[in-house]
Every structure is written in structure tokens, then in C-alpha cells.
């Protein structure tokens, strides 16, 4: 999923990376350094830079870990689940319940894609908490691409199921007909703002949390003996960040379910 938007950033980051190396030898707080993208393997296809970057590497790791945990958990499935099987069944249960509660029975056939989405985001966020790793969900290019694909697919599902009747979504029932002049454009803009809010929510939460951790960590180093204060705070914030990592993956998935529900049932 290393998009071409990434490639541009990758090139700039690679150039900056070299210039910044001298900087990092002494104590300088650079909370944004962790978001730098650099190319691991340069690939050019038809004039496009599709290099394999650190972002792409961590996407692959997240996908492999997600696949591995599910595979390991289900390897010898027992009636009384073991430790790994418990984890796998719990993850399955979370998404199955979410779809049943928010989409209904029609949502069952979309389970595989939503489950994959949830696992990918969950492990992307959680693996990003490992020191020196990279959080690909802290880049708007990644989250907006995912949100845009979800938005387009959900809209297509709605149009295929309801045809022109799908346009009722943009006009509240019972309102006088002449108000359509104002209401329809507003509803349209509101509908088109969905992928923006969906992607910005995930990206902002992850980015803010990681910057906060780095800034507090920098304080702990620079303040000497008094650094014990930000250090204690850091322990609490780290715990909070794990919560945010899991919660934001959940929120992204649940909103996908709600959009799917709107497309299938039209409110």
C-alpha cells in the first residue's frame, strides 16, 4: 500500500535524513523525527517512485503479525481454548458483535473485509508503540487512502442496492420540498466530509500521542534530577497511549460499520 503520495515525501525525507544526522549526536528534542519516511529499497516503475519504505515495512509486519496470531490461535482449535486461541476468538468476537449491533444480519457478508481492516489498524497502532518502530497510521496519506477506499466502496454498495433511491439519504423525510435547495447541498457536503473526519481522527490521535511521548521523554532527559517528574507522567501517558491505540482502531472500524449501515438501510 506504499502510495505514490508517500513516494514524494520519501524523497524529501531521504534528503533531509542525511542533513539531520549531525543534529542527533547531541541532546536535541526532535519529536517529529519519528514520522520521517525513508526508502529501504528504491523501486521505480513507469516514472513513479514506488520505493519500499519503512512505512511499507511496518504495514507488512502488521499484516504478518495479524495473520500469524490468527493462524497460531486456530492451529489446533479445542473446545476449551488455550491462550492463543482465546486471543483469536476474542478478536473475532469483538468484530462479529460490532457488525451484528451496527449493521445487522446483512452485514455478515462484509465480515472478512471489516475484520481484516480492524486487525490491520489494531496491530499498526499497537506495534507503533514499540520503541524505534514506525506508526504508519500517524500519516494522513495512509489513513485518508483507507478512508477514501471505504467511502467509495460503501457508496457503491448503497447505489447498487437502492439505485436512484439511494439519493434519499441526502434529503430528510418529512421536510417541505422547497427546503431541498438548502438541505441537499448541506447533506451532500456533510456526506463528503465523512472520509475526512474518519481519516483525520485516527491520524490526529496517533500523531498527537506520539509527539507527546517524545516531548515528555525529552524533558525527562534535559531536566536532570528533576526529570523524575516528567518520567512518572510518561509512565501514565504510555499506558494511555496503548488504550488510545486500541480504541482508535475500534472507532475507525465501528464508523465503517455505521456508514455501511447507512448505505444498506438508508437511516
Amino acid at each position, binding site marked *: 500500500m506504499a502510495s505514490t503520495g508517500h513516494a514524494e515525501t520519501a524523497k524529501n525525507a531521504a534528503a533531509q535524513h542525511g542533513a539531520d544526522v549531525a543534529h542527533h549526536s547531541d541532546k536535541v528534542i526532535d519529536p517529529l523525527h519519528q514520522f520521517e519516511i525513508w526508502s529501504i529499497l528504491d523501486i521505480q516503475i513507469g516514472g513513479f517512485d514506488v520505493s519500499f519504505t519503512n512505512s511499507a515495512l511496518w504495514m507488512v509486519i502488521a499484516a504478518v503479525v495479524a495473520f500469524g496470531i490468527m493462524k497460531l490461535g486456530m492451529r489446533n482449535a479445542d473446545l476449551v481454548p488455550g491462550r492463543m486461541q482465546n486471543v483469536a476468538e476474542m478478536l473475532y468476537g469483538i468484530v462479529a458483535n460490532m457488525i451484528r449491533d451496527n449493521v445487522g444480519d446483512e452485514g455478515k457478508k462484509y465480515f472478512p473485509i471489516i475484520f481484516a481492516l480492524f486487525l490491520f489498524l489494531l496491530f499498526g497502532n499497537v506495534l507503533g508503540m514499540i520503541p524505534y518502530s514506525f506508526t504508519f497510521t500517524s500519516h494522513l496519506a495512509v489513513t485518508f487512502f483507507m478512508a477514501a477506499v471505504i467511502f467509495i466502496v460503501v457508496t457503491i454498495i448503497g447505489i447498487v442496492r437502492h439505485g436512484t433511491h439511494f439519493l434519499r439519504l441526502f434529503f430528510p423525510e418529512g421536510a417541505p420540498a422547497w427546503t431541498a435547495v438548502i438541505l441537499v447541498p448541506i447533506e451532500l457536503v456533510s456526506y463528503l*466530509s465523512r472520509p475526512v473526519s474518519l481519516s*483525520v481522527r485516527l491520524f490526529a490521535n496517533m500523531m498527537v500521542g506520539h509527539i507527546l511521548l517524545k516531548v515528555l521523554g525529552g524533558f525527562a532527559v534535559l531536566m536532570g534530577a528533576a526529570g523524575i517528574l516528567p518520567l512518572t507522567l510518561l509512565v501514565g501517558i504510555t499506558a494511555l497511549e496503548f488504550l488510545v491505540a486500541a480504541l482508535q482502531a475500534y472507532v475507525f472500524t465501528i464508523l465503517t460499520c455505521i456508514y455501511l449501515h447507512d448505505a444498506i438501510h438508508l437511516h
Partner: protein
Amino acid sequence: MSGAAVGLRIAIEIMAAVAAGVGIGFALDDWLGTKPWMLILFCILGFGAALVNVMRTARELERKRLEAKQKAAQANRD
């Protein structure tokens, strides 16, 4: 959900709607060559959409709060 989380959610909801409006306005201006009228129009529509979004979010949060309250009351009675 904590107060800060609700605040961030509402703020993003407003930002997203206005950003979508401005984006559409810019694109239409570019396409139709009507600079700056579409931008102005869709800015206003974006603010309208932001209000709609915030109202929907608030209503949903309120519904969730009531549901949680009802559940707690049920648990107390049992």
C-alpha cells in the same frame, strides 16, 4: 468517553466538514473558472454541514449515555 475525547471528536467533525466544503469549492472554481464564488458558497455550506455533523454526533453521544444509564439502572434493580 472522557470530556477531552468528546471535545476532540466534535472539533474534528467541524474541521472535516469545513475542509470538505473548501475543497469542493476550490475544485469547482478551478473547473468552472468562477473564482471565488464557488469557494464562498461552499464555505457557507461547509459551516452548515459542520452544524449538522455536530448535532448528529451530540445526539449519538446522548443516546449512548442514556443507554449506559439505563443499563446501570437495570443492573441495580437485579
